[in-house]
């Protein structure tokens, strides 16, 4: 798969809530194809403390117009600096990286479950899957209403529901407390991305229900394109690189 290092110009940087920013950027040229679940490796501009690039899932891409969007959650130094970029600033991006989600067939019913910044690839998936909203259900979990990001724009692509730990929005509890989890047999596929404990809980339920389930891992990475072997995940096929063999894995391949 051809990959490139490309300079993007930040078009806008929108704070979605206390800790999540939507970064839109544009390149001078059209982009290579990018699929939901694939990621990019971003150089943190002008930061004194961040040495390596930082991987982020593609939240949206319009290859023809050269546009790329990322949903960045402030976690540490790199993401904090990145969330401070100003429109006009240049950002160097290595892409497209990794293998994305297996897209569902047009007749399938699909459940996507996300938490935290794991929302990004799932909403991109919803958009690209091209299913009628009724056949793509998305559950997004967060601690509290204020941690949720606005997702109205995606109601065209999926039926969205929320859970919050404090009950301030949607169903109270964890994502797996959502009533849809009692009807897993209605779905042919389950996709998930988010914090590890959440993904493990979702995967356990999907496995129990015998459902196809893909998860997206966020292992620590140095290179992002398969040369350093730092990002490995133990699988039934041995240690595999998350950056090239993943980040999306079928749970049957994982040793969870």
């Amino acid at each position, binding site marked *: 798969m051809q990959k490139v290092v490309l300079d993007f110009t930040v078009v806008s940087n929108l704070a979605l809530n206390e800790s999540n920013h939507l970064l839109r950027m544009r390149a001078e040229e059209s982009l290579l194809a990018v699929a939901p679940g694939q990621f990019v490796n971003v150089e943190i501009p002008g930061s004194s403390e961040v040495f390596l690039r930082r991987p982020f899932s593609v939240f949206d891409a319009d290859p023809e117009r050269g546009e790329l969007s990322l949903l960045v959650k402030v976690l540490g130094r790199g993401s904090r600096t990145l969330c401070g970029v100003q429109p006009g600033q240049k950002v160097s991006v290595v892409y497209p990286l990794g293998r994305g989600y297996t897209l569902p067939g047009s007749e399938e019913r699909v459940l996507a479950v996300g938490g935290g910044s794991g929302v990004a690839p799932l909403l991109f998936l919803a958009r690209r899957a091209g299913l009628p909203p009724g056949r793509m259900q998305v559950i997004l979990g967060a601690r509290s209403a204020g941690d949720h990001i606005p997702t109205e724009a995606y109601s065209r692509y999926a039926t969205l529901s929320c859970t919050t730990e404090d009950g301030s929005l949607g169903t109270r509890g964890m994502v797996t407390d959502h009533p849809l989890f009692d009807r897993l047999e209605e779905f042919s596929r389950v996709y998930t991305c988010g914090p590890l404990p959440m993904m493990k809980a979702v995967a356990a339920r999907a496995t129990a229900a015998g459902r196809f389930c893909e998860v997206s891992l966020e292992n620590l*990475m140095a290179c992002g*394109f398969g040369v*350093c072997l730092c990002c*490995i995940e133990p699988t039934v096929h041995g240690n595999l690189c998350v950056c090239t063999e993943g980040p999306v894995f079928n749970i049957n391949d994982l040793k969870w």
Partner: protein
Amino acid sequence: MVNLAVDIKGLHLKNPVMTASGCSGFGTELADFYDPSLLGALLLKGITPRHRDGNPYPRMAETASGMLNAVGLQNKGVDYFIGEIYPRIKDYDTALIVNVNGSTVEEYVEVTEKIAGLDRIAAMELNISCPNVKEGGMAFGVSCPGAAAVTREVRKAYPKTLIVKLSPNVTDITEIARAVEAEGADAVSLVNTFLGMAIDAEHRRPRLSTVTGGLSGPAIKPIALRMVWQVYQAVRIPVIGLGGIMDATDAVEFLLAGASALQVGTALFKDPFAPLKITAGIQNYLEKHHFSSVRELTGKLQM
């Protein structure tokens, strides 16, 4: 037009910029970005006699101007390399160099004998300096008798260019360099990574599954440069310099300190094009300073 070619005891390089082992996979990954034939040489990922899983996750920690890794020589073994990988890379039009590892002298020799049969492998780099494996690895590289013993046996089994990769985790690296030179090494490459450690203060845990790992990147450049300079004065065989080379200026510094050729490791993670940019930058430097060949820069530090 300046001459960028370098010869290292029979190993011909079209330019002095190689990748570093473990940082450029088997070349196929870089091929997604550009034609690896543009490289001075391709240093392949460390190979052992048999499949190794490497160390558990996490294997990486970022540090100030550098990173720690604890990969631990994950690879599918020399036979898999010969059967599956070699055929896919053998037509790259650049020098292919295998990085050879083992837990015992016998294991090093075992890999060497198999590699010696491969036409298109131009040279071998003997890794006696990996800090991330329990047996062998750095244990050989930090004592003169150890380093000499591996080199001696491998030399017998390998007729082409033999490079020995030195560990910086020693009191006097020139002693080790002289010891391997005496046993017939054609060149030395230095440095491998420094043994380091990172801690997650919040969770009071080591950041690496193996607690310690190998430090690479610009952080180590001043020490690596000093060692290249010392070894250049101590031995007659060519020195291949590496450790934190990020740009052409860094590269020129290593050449001036005494390196005949260079390797680029961690820089590849930030920018896969780094070796090509560095080669172009060296060429600019040579033109600007009126040198006709990169060979003239080696050891040209004015004291």
